[in-house]
């Protein structure tokens, strides 16, 4: 197991390197640059800007300098567009926000999603099942960019209960709507996967045996059904968790949370090379990390899996 983990971590290094070089190349290949503006910047001023941000160097040198700064100094450079700030500052400011609402939304989605799925499967073809499936489908067809404005209309404009946007770590009223808007569709997916996977396991031989032994229903579900039924859910959760904690442009946009989801999209649109690279690397590293974690969890849940 340990050798497996070490091997996966070693593979992560070239994976990240390839990610950096590919993103760097793609980004520079896109038409326009950080200093493309309505008012075309005169050549002499563009030259000053490019010199300042190292864009006057040959491409290979730029990649090399970038990698050197990142690896040796953990310095992702200054933002090319938000010129008072560095990429490290932008991430240090935005990522904790994203992580907070993302992790809470994830917990909410997993808890209610699994509960809903289990309730539906154990009451297969009864009203609870139909109700749960109804909710899951309803939540699925309400994407967050539809749900977010509806939430604000209801809770801010009509009821006046919650602020329409902004962020305070210690005030739940700022966190409730982003969490609901982000969690809902994931919750629905988790519920559906749990339900179908549960139904499959409920029909398995070992469950029939357990029932035949006369075990009470809740013991059967908890000890014999839930664990194997959660395997497919787990493989869905890894990438989902990374998606949720690295931010959603919709949540940041509608709720002015200041998270990095919007920063990434804006960086792409503004050709803010350094910010885009920084957040891409962050997401890449997190994805690799959580995929590894999920694989380890697999082995724990299913003893048949050996690395």
């Amino acid at each position, binding site marked *: 197991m340990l050798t497996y983990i070490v091997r996966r971590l070693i593979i992560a290094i070239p994976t990240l390197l390839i990610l950096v070089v590919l993103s760097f190349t793609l980004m520079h290949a896109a038409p326009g640059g950080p200093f493309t503006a309505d008012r075309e910047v005169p050549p002499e001023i563009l030259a000053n800007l490019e010199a300042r941000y190292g864009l006057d160097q040959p491409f290979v040198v730029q990649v090399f300098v970038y990698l050197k700064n990142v690896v040796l100094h953990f310095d992702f450079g200054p933002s090319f567009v*938000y010129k008072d700030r560095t990429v490290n500052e932008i991430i240090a400011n935005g990522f904790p926000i994203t992580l907070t609402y993302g992790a809470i939304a994830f917990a909410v989605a997993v808890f209610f999603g699994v509960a809903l799925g289990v309730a539906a499967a154990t009451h297969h073809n009864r009203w609870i099942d139909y109700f749960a499936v109804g909710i899951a489908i309803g939540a699925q067809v309400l994407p967050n960019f539809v749900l977010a404005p509806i939430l*604000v209309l209801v809770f801010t404009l009509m009821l006046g209960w919650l602020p*329409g946007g902004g962020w305070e770590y210690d005030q739940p009223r700022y966190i409730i709507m982003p969490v609901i808007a982000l969690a809902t569709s994931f919750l629905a997916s988790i519920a559906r996967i749990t339900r179908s996977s549960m139904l499959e396991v409920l029909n398995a031989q070992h469950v029939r045996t357990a029932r035949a032994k006369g075990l009470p229903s809740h013991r059967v579900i908890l000890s014999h059904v839930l664990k194997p039924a959660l395997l497919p859910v787990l493989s869905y959760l890894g990438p989902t968790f990374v998606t949720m904690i690295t931010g959603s442009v919709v949540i940041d946009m509608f709720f002015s949370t200041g*998270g990095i989801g919007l920063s990434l999209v804006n960086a792409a*649109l503004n050709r803010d090379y350094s910010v885009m690279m920084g957040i891409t690397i962050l997401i890449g590293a997190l994805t690799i990390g959580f995929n590894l974690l999920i694989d380890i969890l697999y082995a724990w849940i299913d003893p048949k899996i050996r690395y």
Partner: protein
Amino acid sequence: MSLTKKLSGILLVLSFVFSSVDAATKNGVKLADKQIFTYRILDDIKSFDPQISTDVSGSEILRSLFEGLMNEDSTGELVPGAATSFSVSEDKLTYTFNLREANWANGEPVKAGDFVYAWRRLVDPATASEYAWYMELMGIVNASQVVKGELAPDQLGVKALDDKTFQITIENALPYFPSMTTHASTFPVLQSVVEKHGTQWTRPENMVGNGAYTLDEYRPGEKVVMKRNPGYWNDAETTLEEVVALVINDDDQALTRYLAGEMDKTEIPSGQFPRLKKEYADEAFSYPRSCSYIYWFNIGEKGPEALKDVRVRTALSYAINREIITDKILQGGQYQSYNFTHQKTAGFTLPDIEYANWTQPERDAKAKALITEAGYGPDNPLKLSISYNTSEGHKKIAIAISQFWKKTLGVEVELINTEWKVHTTNMQAGDYEIGRYAWCGDYNEASTYLDLLTSYSGHNVGGFSNTAYDELMAESKTMADPSDNYSKAEALLAAQMPFAPIYQYTGVIMLKPHLKGWPIGNLMQNWYARELYIVEP
């Protein structure tokens, strides 16, 4: 009645008496206790550094945090700012500004040297400011050479004659030069602060400004909070205690939050003005805004052959039904446009442009005749493409115009939609046929528009080059009253049609009725927070 009750009664009466004496009033109206102005900005602030900032919402904030030589009043007229007065030499090349007694927020006096430092800093290649060209536009002596690195920044034509006298030398006479000193990139900064903190000097804990407000809090992507600066020279006339800018990326979301009472000002999403005006008659406003929306015809090297024929360009422009665009698509009181300069620009009289006075059927008939004359028709249809950047509004207009052209002239139009950076890059490289474009005035004078069409302008992306036009504009720079030349220039544009003018902007905003002092009449929308105040509802 017990003594305490009597006493408290008396106290109550007294407190009423005193509070009514104390309650501040402005222009005869009672002020609200809470003097906080909250407004919406679309995007995060790019920079709080006057010499680095490039965006409109950044400039708005900088006008509160810093103060330049001159300010604008609510109608856009120049009024003294950090300078109390100025004089100009006989040859109109040297301006001398007299600074008032005023302090930086840390108590140091504002000196002419602070302006010298800031202006040199703007052109210094080491600063790498995207707005360094503004000093070139102002025509400051040696600005171009300093930007190019050929001369040291201290060779720029600015100097401090003494602590309170700031002198500027410009290369050519520029009648509107003083109005250019209201621009945020010309605001002074304090050398000791900038040098001590480097790029960190704009952080709330480090920044020292000379404006009516100080930067209290900045939460990237969320909000900017500014607090009143008691050390500001005109603090006695400042009313707002706090100014808050909320970053809200989505127009509709901003409107919902405005309606929920979270803000005092927001922009109206496109197409919603008529409805809001009906529902909130005293809150929805439309006012002229100094920008002009046009379709460039690429007549440069890479442009299509057909567009080099003035008859084709004229026919295309005539066939656009501008009334439909302003009244049915935009619906925010925008002006149908048959010329380039925004019609509300100071000192500008709309020239008599013939086709502006025709009816649309007349224009269409004329357009058909012209396109046939140019050799295009059902057998030989003209094929062109319109490029625009991603936006619902641009898309609707492009679709409408392609339909006008198809129905009236039989032109087959291809619509090319790209994201903004790609569109801009293509336009600047001349890789387009007909391109959507908007130009906003830098200052309130017609040349801010008309200079664009000179053959030597850096922004003339359509490739229009006309000697007579260049001469008119060059001559206008030395005239006491250039308005006659501006009219001639506009007439020349209408005859040559290097682009199709489409509409001139209005700003459409929601303003809470309790907010007073908003400069609706200022075409540049240069507002100053210290002039706003909130009255009791």
